[in-house]
């Protein structure tokens, strides 16, 4: 970034996103509360709050985890990704309310510190049927807190995108802990198989989508041409790239987005400086490469963000021989101008 931070950089899209998110959450809560009151007419308000916040948090967690692979399968899901961080923070707040109500209801009546009580009230670690599942939920909540607390771009910049991304990949550990928390809790307190079915269904969907998109990515990486000439590697034909779009290629350790625009070709790093989003899945808008995740922009010929922003991408030398596009996989320093390669006979 190159401008002062704001708490939230509101725009029309984010407001629309949050409105739809709020409506969805209200719907989930309403359906769940109605179902609980029908199935358990004598349910107390505390138990209802504990269950409803847990259900909403888990539902949001599942949605968060499937947004990424869905976007890779179909770009029509990209709007869901745009403001995923608000979804994440909202999910944490529901999990926090759930955790606080559980601690108040189950751990404040004795003379032990309530948080210590979470770890001490049940120490049957040897018995799977009596395992203290609360601890798993507590640890998941700590991870979610860390992620929510670092969701602002201030942290992305100051922890560096790589560390920030690594930190936020802990969502999978949190998910595993949540699955353990719910599965063991259900085992101890619920005789109906409904919760097991829902948990297993959610796991199958998340794991299935992640594995499927992962395998597709591996296949794509393997399909990259390795035909070399001088220092250049042939990556595709000019016509293989749609106008204002890119082809993503991986040569050695370099993940490169080769863009076609105005009858010419430029190549930059495929990783957005914001959250390492796949730039090659974006398109050229107003003369700039535009990240499909959050709209960060870069000039294709030098990888620099338009002023006042100062993010820079690595750039790569390119040329066109006949109809073939060739890329030198040795990156130039971020922000280096590279003359775009033009198709012979192109007027642009």
């Amino acid at each position: 970034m190159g401008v002062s931070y704001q708490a939230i950089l509101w725009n029309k899209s984010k407001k629309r996103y949050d409105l739809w998110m709020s409506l969805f959450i209200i719907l989930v809560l309403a359906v769940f509360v109605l179902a609980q009151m029908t199935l358990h007419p004598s349910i107390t308000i505390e138990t209802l709050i504990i269950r409803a916040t847990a259900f909403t948090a888990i539902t949001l967690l599942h949605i968060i985890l499937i947004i990424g692979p869905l976007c890779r399968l179909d770009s029509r899901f990209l709007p869901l990704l745009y403001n995923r961080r608000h979804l994440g923070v909202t999910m944490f707040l529901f999990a926090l309310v759930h955790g606080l109500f559980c601690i108040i209801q189950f751990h404040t009546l004795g003379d032990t510190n309530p948080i210590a009580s979470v770890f001490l009230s049940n120490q049957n670690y040897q018995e799977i049927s009596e395992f203290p599942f609360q601890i798993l939920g507590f640890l998941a909540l700590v991870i979610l807190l860390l992620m929510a607390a670092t969701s602002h771009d201030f942290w992305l910049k100051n922890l560096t995108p790589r560390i920030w991304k690594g930190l936020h990949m802990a969502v999978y550990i949190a998910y595993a802990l949540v699955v353990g928390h719910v599965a063991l809790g259900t085992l101890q307190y619920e005789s109906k198989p409904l919760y097991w079915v829902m948990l297993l269904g959610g796991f199958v969907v998340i794991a299935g989508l992640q594995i499927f998109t992962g395998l597709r990515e591996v296949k794509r990486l393997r399909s990259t041409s390795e035909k070399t000439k001088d220092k250049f590697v042939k990556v595709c034909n000019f016509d293989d790239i749609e106008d204002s779009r890119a082809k993503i290629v991986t040569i050695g350790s370099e993940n490169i987005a080769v863009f076609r625009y105005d009858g010419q070709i430029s190549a930059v790093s495929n990783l957005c400086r914001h959250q390492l989003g796949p730039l090659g899945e974006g398109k050229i808008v107003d003369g700039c490469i535009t990240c499909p995740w959050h709209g960060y922009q870069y000039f294709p010929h030098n990888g620099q963000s338009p002023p006042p922003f100062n993010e820079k991408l690595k750039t790569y030398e390119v040329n066109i021989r006949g109809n073939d596009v060739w890329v030198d996989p040795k990156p130039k320093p971020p922000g280096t101008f590279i003359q775009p390669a033009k198709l012979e006979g192109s007027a642009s």
Partner: protein
Amino acid sequence: MEGLVNICLWLAAAYLLVGLIFYLVCLVRGMQTIDPDTVGAPVSFRLIIAPGVIILWPALVGKWRTKKPSE
């Protein structure tokens, strides 16, 4: 077990207290050394990063120390 849990909780509380003090110091001076883009940022921004600063203060202390000589 009880002793170990209590020690861990006291250590966590002490760690977070240091984080809180660091955050308050940063509000007065230091934040703009760590990240110049915080200059002119509104109070709401300073509040929204508070939990992160209190939890991850060692990362920012390191950044502050390495940047200080050039300021």
